[in-house]
């Protein structure tokens, strides 16, 4: 393979036009609904993921609005305790399991391959399987909710309240299986990202030329891999206690109610960093592009990101400071919880330096990043406060914590919106409206602060969490009303965003390939990208490949256009290593996902579901791995081509 200076997307020469046509036939999805169901294109799957996760965001937001409406006045009778408990459980479960993590993995699944110069993820069919499993899990939860089988013991589902004695019926079992589905989907996404980033990078993209967003996705993927199995185990233990009568959480028979908390929070704390670290990555890309300067202190920023991923596994007991965990152990977690602030701080300082040294353009994505920093500072500082055990014993399980967690999570949403405004032109080919974007930002910023800042004081004033109402005599009514007004404002801002999206899709300004003059490889594709993304895979010579050459960029030549072929490169220096055959779109991932879905849903009702379902899943997986006639022929042609 030689590097020839040919523009990767503009098929200027006649052979490139032919190549582009053939590539479209090879990499394009079959037509119609069946084609859509069979698709394994990471861009198509990424878009589905993003839209589905956003729908869940809206649903979770509606649940939040109901909560705030109920709490706006003391002794309000809008929602009784039973339905309120279901709604706040659904709000937490939806936002954490169905929106936040899938949205972050979705952004990765869409942009990471493109940013590293690959045509698809490492295992495209597995990617499709992950999405379908996620969708089935979300449908399971919401079908349950609308039929009054929704879980009602909190998104954290503490035992013994969620155990067989105190939670009758199948509500908690639906929660447990939803977690299993989303956990499988997250693990699939993490496998894809790690394999793609490690082995499918463009030639020349050495380890220290990887874009910061891709680094953050890589850290997130490893964190998913190490944390998700714990929550899946915990939910399986809970399902076993409830279904077949095991005693894992029964203190009278040798189990322990605290075991649940350890298992859950060992996942639960990394989970929030799984959400936050990609947000940092997105914001970093925006900062670089809009400062028109490469990241100051790139090694420090990357290492801080990685350190944050590691350290986040050492914090989980800070959710349990009010329990019987011994003092000495707790103080260790105080120290780690405080120290992790440094990793975020280093990244923020690098951004400030980048902006200061650069020439910032105050466009909407950049403004969202500024808001992100402001909001996160409040959330992060209150986070350091609650790292202190004595202080946490006062504010644990109060609205102070609600304020803290929403500040940090909403900060991630600000960064996510920065990413949306930044990458929307790439995905759809149209720019989002700038003026509507500023209005959206303003309303969102005001709404979040008005909604959540008063909650710090509600918590200090004695108001616990997860309460469906409160007495008028407590005097909490005024701040609650103010907070609810903020929630309404936030909802309005989300509506503005939807209006912006709708108008932009219909009549927005056309974006062109690179509307922001950005530095990473996804801006070398068309907007929206073609199914094959690049006519020729790019070769990278620096950290900011798009800023190196204006017209002539080095590319890879000699890749096949009649078969789906991926270029595998080495880990550290991205030297081309081997060629990898990738299969055509197929319905098999969907079938396997349905088999998996059926198994886990059956497990809610009977342990035989596992036995019978495993057989069905095995059959599906064998069918998946079995090459059909067309794949067989292609593989033979592929191997002949290499030989």
């Amino acid at each position, binding site marked *: 393979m030689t590097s020839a200076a040919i523009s990767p997307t503009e098929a200027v020469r006649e052979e490139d036009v032919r190549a582009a046509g053939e590539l479209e036939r090879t990499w394009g999805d079959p037509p119609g609904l069946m084609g859509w169901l069979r698709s394994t294109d990471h861009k198509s799957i990424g878009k589905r993921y993003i839209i589905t996760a956003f729908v869940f965001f809206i649903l979770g937001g509606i649940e939040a609005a109901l909560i705030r409406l109920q709490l706006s006045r003391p002794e309000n009778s809008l929602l009784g*305790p*039973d339905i309120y408990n279901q709604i706040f459980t659904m709000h937490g479960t939806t936002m954490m399991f169905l929106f936040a993590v899938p949205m972050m993995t979705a952004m990765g699944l869409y942009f990471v391959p493109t940013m590293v110069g690959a045509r698809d993820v490492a295992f495209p069919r597995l990617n499709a399987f992950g999405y379908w499993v996620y969708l089935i899990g979300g449908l399971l939860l919401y079908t349950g909710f609308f039929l009054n089988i929704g879980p009602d013991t*909190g998104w954290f589902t503490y035992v*013994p*309240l969620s155990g067989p004695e*105190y939670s009758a019926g199948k509500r908690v079992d639906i929660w447990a299986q939803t977690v299993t589905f989303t956990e499988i989907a997250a693990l699939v996404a993490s496998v894809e990202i790690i394999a793609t980033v490690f082995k499918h990078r463009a030639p020349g993209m050495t380890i220290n030329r990887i874009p910061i967003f891709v680094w953050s996705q890589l850290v997130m993927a490893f964190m998913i891999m190490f944390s998700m199995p714990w929550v899946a185990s915990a939910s399986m233990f809970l399902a076993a206690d409830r279904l077949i009568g095991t005693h894992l959480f029964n*203190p*009278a028979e040798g189990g322990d*109610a*605290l075991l649940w908390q350890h298992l859950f929070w060992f996942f639960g704390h990394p989970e929030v960093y799984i959400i936050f670290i990609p947000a940092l990555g997105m914001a970093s890309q925006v900062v670089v592009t809009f400062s028109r300067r490469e990241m*100051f*202190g790139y090694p*420090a920023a990357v290492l801080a990101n990685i350190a944050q991923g590691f350290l986040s596994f050492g914090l989980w007991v800070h959710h349990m400071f*009010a*329990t*019987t965990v011994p*003092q000495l152990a707790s*103080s260790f977690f*105080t*120290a780690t919880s*405080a*120290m992790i602030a*440094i990793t975020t*701080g*280093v990244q*923020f*300082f*690098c*951004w*400030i*330096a980048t*902006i*200061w*040294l650069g*020439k910032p353009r105050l466009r909407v994505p950049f403004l969202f990043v*500024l808001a992100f*920093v*402001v909001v996160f*500072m409040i959330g992060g*500082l209150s986070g*350091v*406060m609650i790292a*202190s*055990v*004595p*202080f946490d*014993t*006062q504010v*644990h*399980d109060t609205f102070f914590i609600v304020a803290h967690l929403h500040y940090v999570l909403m900060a991630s949403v600000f960064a996510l919106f920065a990413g949306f405004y930044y990458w929307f032109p790439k995905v759809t080919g149209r720019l989002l409206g700038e003026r509507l974007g500023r209005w959206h930002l303003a309303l969102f910023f005001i709404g979040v602060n008005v909604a959540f800042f008063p909650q710090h004081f509600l918590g*200090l*004033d*004695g108001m*616990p969490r*997860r*309460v*469906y109402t409160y*007495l008028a*005599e*407590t005097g909490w009514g005024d701040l609650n009303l103010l907070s609810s007004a903020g929630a309404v404002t936030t909802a309005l801002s989300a509506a503005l965003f939807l209006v912006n999206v709708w108008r932009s899709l219909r009549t927005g300004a056309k974006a062109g390939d690179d509307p922001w003059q950005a530095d990473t490889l996804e801006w070398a594709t068309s907007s929206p990208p073609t199914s094959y993304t690049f006519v020729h895979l790019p070769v990278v010579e620096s950290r900011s490949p798009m800023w190196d050459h204006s017209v002539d960029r080095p590319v890879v030549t000699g890749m096949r256009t009649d078969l789906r072929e991926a270029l595998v490169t080495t880990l550290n220096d991205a030297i081309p290593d081997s060629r990898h055959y990738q299969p055509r779109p197929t319905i098999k991932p969907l079938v396997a996902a349905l088999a998996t879905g059926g198994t886990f849903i059956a497990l809610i009702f009977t342990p035989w579901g596992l036995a019978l379902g495993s057989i069905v899943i095995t059959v599906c997986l064998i069918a998946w791995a079995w090459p059909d006639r067309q794949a067989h022929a292609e593989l033979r042609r592929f191997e002949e081509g290499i030989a």
Partner: protein
Amino acid sequence: MILSLLQGWVGAHSALEPAGPQAGRIHALWQFMWVVSALVFLAVVGALLYAALHRRAAGQSAVNPDGVRSATRWVSIATGVSIAILIAFLGVNFVTARPLTSAPGDALQISVTGYQWWWSVQYPSATPSDQVTTANEIHVPVGRPVVMTLSSRDVIHSFWPANLVGKRDLIPGNKSSIWFQADTPGVYRGQCAEFCGHQHAKMGFLVVADPPAQFEAWLREQRDSAPPPPPGSATRGQEVFLAASCVMCHTIRGTPAGSRVGPDLTHLASRRTLAAATLENTRANLAAWISDPQRIKPGTLMPPADLTPADLAALLDYLETLR
């Protein structure tokens, strides 16, 4: 005292108004932390906004070696200052937490058991006849340390009197303990702070800090069984109590009623609140609670009592004698 007067029957409930040394130390820690946090916030956000908004010299290049050196210096300083602040925070935290850990030897022992959705309170004693059992209202002497042993009979609850001390979870299968001291007389409200089911929102309690003499008097009164009711309506009320569903769950010492499913009612009329600090203890509230508890606390385990108005009035007359 003034605080609790302002709050009415509900009592004080804020972590920002400490009434004892434990809450006081935490309050001091909070003040230190929010001041430092505010300064850090202003510094970082100020730097960010300055970097983003300050006017740049014309022709400034993005590659500026002096700028890079300066930026390196500032980032290093900022990181160093952050580490220093965090270490200082850890130090202040350690100094605050140390005295909070172990209780002094002469503490008063109280045992609290959490149920869905009320608190059983016991003052243990070596002499069994001196033991006191009550519910939802804890009296403590001012100026004396109190150790509460906490346990739960069903799910996880959390005991939290905000004016006095931070919270502690009541975990079934584990016994935990917490200690505090009230230095200011008053009525302090607490609430369960771990989600425990339908009526988690209304599982409150009162801690009443009395001067020592008053506390001893209260304790003595609580030890007594209920005296026989005066003849008339109250006697009829006791008959209603013993014949209806009340005896299935409640104890009134001095009568045959001895069930421990629900709160001990022997001194019901001496309490300031009903239904785990949800209602003020008035005749009207008690009538409403007995007739239809599900309307006030939907999901509570107390069933409605099917009584004629005459029977209900007699029952209330009887219950009012239980001081």
